[in-house]
């Protein structure tokens, strides 16, 4: 078994009296593409936030390649090798596609902006204002901003949100190839089970801020508690 690159222990985040994340521990191994699933409001985005250093106070520790990064802010975590994308498209509208991918590459002192844009089919859009390109292009741009600069761990929060079935599967295949080619470990939140089964080697299921089960996709899919959790909520 390969080493653990990302480890969260006892992660807890509270909004007022409500525990969005309740004592969650997670370990991701090098080279893995880990799926993070669960019904709406399960705490998936909150877990990504806590791991990446976004937002308010939280409890627990986060380790990246054995190093405790709990005390680092979002910028420092990125520079340490932990990058993320966002569920709600989070780009720089008034910059061109090329400008912002280069900007992100420069922060991480990497020269792979061209390569990433090529791989994500953004190269032909390099001179277009980001606010003016299509939604699907913006989703890939959001991903490019996280992927550029050779992060070692990538946290993806529903990269295929709002895409068509076909677009989602294409993106999934691309992700799998890139993760392998650039040796990036991925933790991906995704609602689309086809995407999950196409690329994930293992799954973590969150429910009501806690981890319900973990395991290989084929096993997790048929576990009764997972079926109940999903049926008990209004998720499609």
């Amino acid at each position, binding site marked *: 078994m390969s080493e653990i690159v990302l480890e969260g222990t006892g992660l807890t985040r509270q909004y007022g009296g409500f525990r969005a994340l309740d004592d969650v521990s997670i370990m991701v191994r090098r080279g893995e593409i880990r799926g993070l699933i669960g019904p709406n409001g399960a705490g998936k985005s909150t877990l990504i936030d806590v791991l*990446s250093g*976004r937002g308010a106070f939280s409890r627990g520790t986060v380790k990246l390649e054995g190093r405790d990064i709990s005390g680092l*802010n*979002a*910028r420092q975590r*990125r*520079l340490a090798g932990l*990058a*993320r994308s*966002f569920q709600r498209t*989070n*780009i*720089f*509208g*008034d*910059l061109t596609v090329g*400008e*912002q991918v280069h*900007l*992100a590459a*420069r*922060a*991480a002192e990497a020269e792979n902006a061209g390569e990433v844009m090529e791989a994500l089919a953004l190269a032909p859009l390099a001179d277009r204002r980001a606010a003016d390109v299509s939604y699907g292009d913006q989703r890939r741009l959001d991903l490019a*901003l*996280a992927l550029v*600069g050779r992060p070692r761990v990538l946290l993806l929060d529903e990269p295929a949100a709002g895409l068509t079935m076909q677009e989602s599967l294409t993106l999934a295949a691309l992700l799998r190839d890139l993760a392998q080619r650039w040796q990036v470990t991925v933790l991906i939140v995704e609602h689309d089970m086809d995407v999950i089964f196409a690329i994930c080697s293992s799954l973590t299921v969150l429910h009501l801020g806690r981890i319900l089960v973990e395991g290989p996709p084929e096993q997790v899919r048929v576990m009764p508690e997972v079926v109940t959790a999903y049926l008990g909520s209004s998720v499609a």
Partner: protein
Amino acid sequence: MKMRVLLPLLFAAAGALLPGLVGSTLLMTLLTQAVINAMLATGVGFMVRQNGMVSFGHAGFFGLAAYIVALCTTNHVVTAEFAVLLAVALPMLLAFLLGLAILRIAGVAFSMLTLAVAQSFYELMLRWRELANGDDGMAAELPPRLFGAGIAVFQTPESMFLVCWAALMVVLAGLWLLSRSHFGTLTIAIRENEERARFIGYETLLPRALVYALSAGIAALAGVMFALYNAFVTPDVLYWSLSGEALVMAVIGGTKAIWGPALGAVIFFLFKDVAGDLTEHWPAIIGGTLIVVTVLLPRGASGSLLALVERLGVRR
């Protein structure tokens, strides 16, 4: 592509010919004041363009610079040249430190804080009569020569116009280069989406404070020119209405183009002169115009001009 360099150069040269073409000293006086205000508006507009923040207190940096020139030269504490440097550097430093503290505050609250700081300078100069004669104002005792030129150069409308015009052109060119640099891209990114800028690995407060400092430095430069030209300062140079006017100029001209606020200042000044001749209620007319401009031309005069040029270019 060449036009982008050629056109501004031609424009700068054309401006330099103005004193030779304009016969009236009165008009030259007006134009010189307009260019000084254009510098101030450029500072305010650069802040909006690069930081996305509206300062309502740039008269504070303008007036502070004017007072530093007047106080230092009159009391002979340092050479006049050094006083000029100090008058630009101190407001910049002040803005930088102030920025680190208040730039985290968003929107109107930020604008109100900048207003409060500038008004406190105004009150200080008004009340501390021993320092600078309060609202009577103080004359600046300038030396006979400054930076190798006779002081008359700075006080005759025709020659001072050239000095101010050249300074404005240099500042605009500098800002244009800066906007095309990494720093320019980074600050636009931060303006657009500060959170994502952090998540791709950038510290965001420092660049924003630097933009604030630079914009204050440009306002201070305008204040220096004002003090040299008039050799007299009153607390009015710190008053909120000047900050407001500078903002109005920037809005009229539009802030998307770096030269927009400067254009707005010239329009504002000429308009104010014409309207002032016709009626005493020119502030109301300015106000009315402002409403019309913001509604009809949301990108300001410069934005409309650029859109027009683009349309003509496409047709051809």
